[in-house]
């Protein structure tokens, strides 16, 4: 056995220290030793290096094992500390162990010293590892807890946004239904002009559509968050779908009506119809919402094996620092009071685009509008999944 050992001696006698060193060599250690005899020297030695073991005389004039243990404890160091003392009565031994020494030997009776050192070094190493593990676990726990807190906070914020958003169409709907009930209660039904009914029912249907859209986006989020983006692919003529979705979005009247020009090449591919409708619908309604009522330009091109859809508005634009953030969940670059919505539209778009193996990017300048470009592989993008 030949084990490296950095041993610090707290010993006023040079000879005793040398004897101890030889003892260690004889026991099979390759010791690197240093002798200190005062608090200052001891502290300096601790500053200088990493010690495997401290061997200390207990009863030295001025400075001894008890004082050394104090210093060690004050520094919070866990180094095996073994008393090797000339005079070692029971009472002194008990005192030393109480003070924190790991073991004790009389100077003329050190037969078991080597195995005690080995054992204590091993123990100390185990304690250190356990402490490190514990600290790592604590940090991990703290991190998870922090994540959880943030998630709960986000959910609470979102619930409050969601209820606010749902209340708006609900207000219109409730007023119309109540007014219809009032109408029915007041006049014999044949005298109520059909046109009045018709107008009310039309408004109610519009509010219902709005509520339905909000609820759909809530469901989209729930599904996507649960990892359910299984695609129901079918052959689609993207240019035809594009026209339909743009018309439907413009008719919803939720945003200032915008003049939309579509410049579309015929592109046929294999995608999930509902998901692609959501992608286009969210991009177009976003462009209307933030487009200041200015014309939108939509372009669809077949570029190699990819369908490239670009939606350009001339609205408020997005500052550079906001451009990455807008694709995150619940993020919005504008204050919520100014533009309603869940703050989920672009996040949903990004998730659905990547489920198709596609990409999305934005180019934008404040005041100059934004262009969102989606690229969807035309052949089945299954390999990506």
């Amino acid at each position, binding site marked *: 056995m030949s084990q490296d050992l950095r041993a610090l001696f707290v010993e006023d006698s040079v000879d005793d220290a040398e004897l101890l060193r030889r003892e260690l060599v004889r026991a099979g250690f390759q010791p690197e030793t240093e002798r200190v005899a005062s608090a200052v020297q001891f502290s300096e030695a601790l500053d200088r290096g990493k010690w495997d073991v401290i061997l200390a005389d207990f009863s030295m004039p001025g400075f001894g094992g008890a004082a050394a243990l104090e210093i060690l404890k004050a520094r919070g160091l866990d180094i095996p500390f073994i008393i090797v003392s000339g005079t070692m009565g029971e009472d002194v031994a008990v005192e030393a162990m109480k003070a924190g020494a790991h073991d004790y030997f009389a100077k003329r009776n050190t037969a078991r010293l080597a195995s005690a050192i080995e054992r204590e070094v091993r123990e100390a190493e185990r304690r250190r590892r356990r402490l490190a593990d514990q600290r790592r676990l604590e940090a991990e726990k703290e991190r998870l807890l922090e994540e959880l807190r943030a998630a709960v906070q986000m959910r609470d914020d979102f619930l409050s946004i969601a209820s606010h958003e749902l209340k708006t169409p*609900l207000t219109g709907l409730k*007023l119309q239904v109540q007014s219809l009930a009032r109408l029915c209660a007041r006049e014999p039904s044949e005298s109520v002009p059909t046109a009045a009914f018709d107008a009310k029912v039309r408004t109610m249907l519009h*509010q219902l559509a709005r509520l339905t859209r909000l609820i759909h986006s809530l469901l989209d989020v729930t599904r996507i968050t649960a990892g359910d983006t299984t695609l129901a692919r079918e052959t689609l003529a993207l240019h035809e779908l594009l026209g339909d979705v743009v018309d439907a979005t413009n008719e919803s009247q939720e945003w200032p009506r915008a003049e939309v020009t579509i410049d579309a090449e015929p592109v046929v591919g294999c995608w999930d119809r509902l998901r692609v409708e959501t992608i286009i619908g969210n991009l177009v309604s976003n462009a209307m919402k933030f487009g200041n009522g200015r014309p939108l330009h939509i372009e669809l091109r077949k570029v190699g094996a990819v369908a490239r859809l670009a939606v350009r508005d001339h609205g408020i634009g997005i500052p550079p620092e906001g451009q990455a953030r807008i694709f995150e969940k619940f993020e919005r670059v504008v204050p919520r009071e100014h533009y309603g919505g869940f703050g989920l539209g672009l996040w949903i778009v990004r998730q659905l685009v990547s489920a198709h193996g596609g990409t999305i990017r934005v180019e934008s300048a404040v005041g100059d509008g934004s262009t969102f470009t989606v690229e969807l592989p035309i052949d089945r993008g299954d390999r990506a999944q």
Partner: protein
Amino acid sequence: MNVASHKGEAFSNHAANSVAVLIVDDDKDIRDTIQELLEYEGYSVATAENGAAALDRLRHVHPQLILLDLAMPVMDGISFREEQMNSDSLAAIPTIVMSARPDPGKDAGPLLVRGCLGKPLDLEELLTLVAHYCRGAAA
């Protein structure tokens, strides 16, 4: 005294500056719906899509009641209310807050308004309040 020939008719014959209610809400659906319902009850209505637009409208119309949403772009209901209170000619116009916030009464408290309606609004409640502040405005 406003005169309405019969319910549901537009009030084109009114003096341009006298309306019963000014609705201030950024949501077009809500503005349109309340306007339609109040007009159907015989009240004349003006609308504005935010606080700034409302101040602009108030230079030309003098409503007997303002229905005020709180969360709006450009100028929200709170800022509008401050501006209104600072104006001698506008401060006296009774104002009622409409809000979708969880505790609208708390939000509206410091605004010194006459009342507070939580969204979704209740038609009867709305009509009772409007009738109270706009006596003689309806047919």
